[in-house]
């Protein structure tokens, strides 16, 4: 178990984004994690937990921790039984490595969160991340069936199991998925798998803003029809410009099925699309999705002079239309640039706000309020530390917050893990 003190870039990273310290420990086994936690907990030390390091700008308002525990050396596949369609993996494994391993067996974890080459399954599960394919496949919370967790006091707890259907006891997995590392350190994750699609295709439809309502009606028709898109991602004109060199709204429809069924769906879209819409079947869909996957800045690559904030906004499915239109109105105001894409079938949008720091903060706050007015929420997934301090990055606390605080107090009474990283300072 190495104990490293790195100066230089790491200090810069810590200063810019927080949630990491120059002093990092790299346990190589679960037992080592348990030892580190037990000792830290006993001595009242405060730890930051990091895995791939892409989410240092996500939550967290505590300026410093005693040291960082990195999961970088807890990597690899623990168990994979192809016939059971389950895999057990260590948290530091990158999404890309996990998917590449499974691909050899014609299987996949049906999750497509951003930055798959750098983000790890541990981080993805801790933030309950998902991508455009959530429409069909769901999120981390729908695929994780079991975990091993080191509690803040060092005890090792198994949650769930290794079978795909299981209701024995409380569904404890759910507590740790999306908990931002505030309740325990994940040392093993078992996931349900899906077969790789036999055929896939990506269709884009582009319309100008005045035809956006027709596109909306078309999406409602898709939902009421028999076709089964894997994603329905709406792209605002500013982002379309960088992706497609065209200043229009784009709807990206991904299709996965046996070939005949995919081709049938392409035809259906062609026959039923709004008259104003331009349709394009992408020739290299994989290249497109790879580019799409790297759209947002993260704490590993964001050292630009311009400040960028990334938001995750949740609304009702159709609520993404007023949201994206509002983003475009803000683009016209001129002092920030807003790139946005939104999952029409699931209501989760990603919004990148770039510009001068004070303007970024101002418009993030505005979009948060706008989302809340529409019955949703807006959280900040990526922003430098000093700007996070000026915002409620997790938005408003709701009625169940006292339960959340109670859970944190029960599991981590000494606030050993990722203190103040999550909603309401838990």
């Amino acid at each position, binding site marked *: 178990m190495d104990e490293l003190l790195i100066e230089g870039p790491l200090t810069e990273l810590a200063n810019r984004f927080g949630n990491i310290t120059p002093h990092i420990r790299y346990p190589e086994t679960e037992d080592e994690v348990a030892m580190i936690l037990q000792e830290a907990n006993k001595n009242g030390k405060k730890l930051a937990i990091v895995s791939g390091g892409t989410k240092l700008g996500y939550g967290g308002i505590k300026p410093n921790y005693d040291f960082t525990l990195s999961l970088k050396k807890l990597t690899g596949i623990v168990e994979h039984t192809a*016939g059971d369609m389950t895999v057990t993996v260590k948290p530091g494994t990158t999404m890309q490595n996990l998917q590449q391993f499974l691909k050899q067996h014609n299987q996949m974890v049906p999750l497509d969160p951003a930055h798959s080459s750098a983000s790890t399954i541990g981080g993805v599960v801790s933030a309950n991340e998902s991508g455009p394919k959530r429409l069909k496949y769901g999120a981390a919370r729908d695929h994780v069936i079991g975990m091993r967790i080191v509690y803040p006091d060092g005890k090792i707890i198994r949650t769930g199991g290794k079978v795909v259907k299981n209701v024995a006891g409380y569904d404890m997995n759910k507590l740790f998925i999306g908990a931002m590392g505030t309740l325990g350190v994940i040392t093993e994750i078992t996931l349900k798998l899906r077969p790789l699609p036999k055929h896939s295709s990506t269709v884009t439809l582009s319309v100008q803003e005045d035809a956006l309502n027709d596109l909306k009606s078309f999406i409602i028709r898709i939902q009421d029809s028999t076709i089964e898109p894997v994603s329905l991602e709406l792209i605002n004109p500013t982002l379309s410009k960088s992706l497609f060199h065209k200043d229009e709204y784009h709807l990206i429809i991904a299709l996965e099925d*046996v070939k005949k069924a995919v081709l049938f769906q392409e035809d259906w879209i062609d026959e039923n699309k709004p008259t104003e819409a331009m349709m394009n079947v992408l020739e290299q869909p994989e290249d497109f999705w790879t580019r799409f996957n790297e759209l947002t800045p993260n704490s590993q690559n964001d050292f630009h002079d311009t400040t960028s904030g990334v938001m995750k906004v949740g609304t009702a499915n159709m609520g993404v239309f007023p949201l994206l239109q509002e983003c475009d109105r803000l683009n016209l105001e001129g002092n920030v640039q807003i790139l946005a894409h939104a999952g029409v079938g699931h209501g989760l949008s990603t919004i990148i706000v770039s510009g001068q720091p004070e303007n970024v903060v101002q418009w993030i706050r505005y979009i948060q309020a706008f989302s809340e007015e529409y019955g949703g929420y807006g959280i900040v997934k990526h922003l430098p530390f000093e700007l996070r301090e000026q915002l409620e990055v997790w938005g408003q606390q709701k009625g169940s917050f006292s*339960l959340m605080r109670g859970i944190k107090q*029960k599991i981590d009474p000494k606030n050993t893990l990722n203190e103040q990283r999550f909603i309401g300072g838990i």
Partner: protein
Amino acid sequence: MVLLSRRKKATIDPDILALSKIVGTKSILHHKEDLLSYDCDGFTIHKAMPKAVIFPKNTEEVSAAVKYCASHNIPFLARGAGTGLSGGAIPLNNEVIISLVKMKNLLSVDYENRKAVVQPGFVNLKLTNSISHKGYYYAPDPSSQYVCTIGGNVAENAGGAHCLKYGVTTNHILGLEVVLPDGEVIEISPNGVLDTPGYDILGILTGSEGTLGIVTKITVRILKNPESKKTVLAYFDRVEDGSHAVSDIISAGIIPAALEMMDQTAIEGVEAGAFPVGHPPDIEALLLIEVDGITEGIAEQIEQILTVCENHHVRDVKVARDEEERGRWWANRKTGFGAMGAISPDYLVQDGVIPRSKLPEVLKEIRNISKEYNLRIANIFHAGDGNLHPLILFDSRIEGETEKALLAGTACLKACADAGGSITGEHGVGIEKKEEMRFIFSDEELEAQTSIRDVFNPHNLLNQGKLFPTPSRCMDIKKVVNETSLTKST
């Protein structure tokens, strides 16, 4: 349901008076003869009498009743249709039962945003029936779906035959209104928006078997009906061939909407039951396989399934000709538990889960258990996700046979746990499998779970004595009444 309209006599019990004031005198039962049918749920081995049963009409009444019970230290629990198979709604501590059957409305349907809001007493199948004219349905389909309530489904995280492809209840719940054990009402994602910031309270409440709170409003995801469904029935001379066919279908990259299996004893039962379809009596296993999706893609998958079956020496395999035939095959399967009443005076349903690849060896182990205890065991199960339902057939009139059946059931669960599985896939722990929790969880892991209960339910007045093992085992064995009458009631 008979309510208390014929008795006007005042009672001396102040709790009954107070609760009557909250829900109205017509919405409370407290005389012994009225309470008898609330002494158990679908798990009939254990019985206990409630203090009273109340039928609140809205969230405010639930909250007021809970506040009263909490402040007077009266144990209480929530009950839906009472179809639970693990005893989760049995009033072990003379509870006040809060029955949610009067809160049975569909509050809203929002097709554009694919969600519906229901009250907890709304019956599962009614939701699908209410939205099917628009081509939509609600996915979780427990066998009791024509009578069980969505509130109960949330408590148990109910599954069903079609959850192989579409997931269980927890994957379809978008928001909840909950009365906490102190009476406070909280709303979690009331608009059904995904990923509300904070810990996943929805996720921990779903499947908590009524020990963390009482659900009073539920926002669920609704799905569009698949364009086509095709159902295949395959007969195998050897159970091993059936098991291997299951694995090969999944390995071929097909996720059937359902993949069900029955063994010879189960077939004998369903053929003697209310919905026989003429399965041959001398086969060891049958598979019921359903594929759904876009019409253009179905034929190819059916071809693959037929090939897999033929590779495994299938005796006969056929595709349902029409919806009528498909419906008959499913009625035969879905009433399978109750049908055992036709071939055995009593039966006990178990609910183990195993990794799919262990199917042949665990089935073999169950045959050994059957021999060892000298009791017939029928197997009806969701083979696709490894969820076994061994049905232990016995006769409670024979001295000691009930105890033997319980032991055989425990042995089946042990076999599942030893194969790396779980002791329950969809029926819940309740009181039935409390002790068996030790097969899969350590003391520390059980304590980790009860400490979460303490956050929600610190005085443990809500549904006490469920889900977690007690230090000493004490089982009051009573007669098993089979559920045939219930299952045939449609």
